[in-house]
């Protein structure tokens, strides 16, 4: 009886580890699970070539930010921003990357800033979660 109990207690955690391993393998293959993959996917969704070099980059308490100049119809450029969000209270315990066109005042062209001192993004931005 003691032997059976010992075997059972050993088999439980072993099965759990197996499940966790399977889950990890699946997650590692999918896009958006690592911060880097999530950033690149957010860029793709917003039409920013992942090979493009940023024109500026910064870092603050909520994460990193990269800015890109991308072409717009009619031959002009627009500023896009790719931002890491680690302090999003609607996604507790999960960071994500956002990518989108920088929101500007339509009259003056001034960039709208958020409470973290970062450029606001237009509402049609893309968001990709990653596992912390």
């Amino acid at each position, binding site marked *: 009886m003691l032997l059976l109990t010992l075997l059972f207690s050993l088999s439980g955690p072993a099965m759990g580890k197996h499940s966790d391993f399977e889950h990890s393998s699946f997650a590692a293959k999918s896009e958006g699970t690592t911060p880097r993959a999530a950033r690149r996917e957010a860029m793709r969704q917003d039409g920013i070539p992942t090979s493009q070099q940023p024109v500026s980059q910064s870092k603050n308490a909520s994460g990193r930010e990269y800015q890109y100049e991308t072409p*717009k*119809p*009619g*031959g*002009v450029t627009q500023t896009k921003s790719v931002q890491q*969000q680690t*302090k*999003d*209270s*609607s996604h507790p315990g999960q960071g994500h990357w956002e990518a989108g*066109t920088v*929101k*500007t*005042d*339509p*009259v*003056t062209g001034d960039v*709208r800033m958020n409470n973290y001192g970062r450029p*606001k993004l*237009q*509402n*049609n931005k893309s968001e990709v979660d990653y596992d912390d």
Partner: protein
Amino acid sequence: MTDRQLEIRKLASLPSYMVELEALTGRSVSADALLSVHETILLRDKLKQIPKEQVVRACIPFEALKSRAFTLMLDRLNTLNASPVALWLPKSSDCGLLQLPSIKEINFGFSFDLIPEGILVIATSDGLNRMLLDFSDEEDGQRSLEIELHGPHWAQATPPTC
């Protein structure tokens, strides 16, 4: 920018711009009713001269656009300067402004997704005042609206608070 480039930008923006204008006015809008790009630039140059310190700001939930407090603020703006107004959306610089007889003719019950850029301005046609509405999804999952009232008359109004 060349005339050809301007025309390409206008053609690319016009269909969705007309949808936005019709939702904001509650009536059909013809492209012929839009001010020319030249008139739009003239008004922009006047609006840019509003002193930066002539502004009041407030942040309220986006849904408060339908509130009585917001309607009361519009009444106050109309009292302070009753000039015709121009609707200034992100695509207006490419397509031309739509002018309306009064700020009271604008449908502020528009949906959050109507303007994907999340920002619009209503300016008095005399170029002295403007109201900026900047709406966003916030990190707590709420939808917020920042109101800015600029100019010697409209900055005297008190925007609603939460």
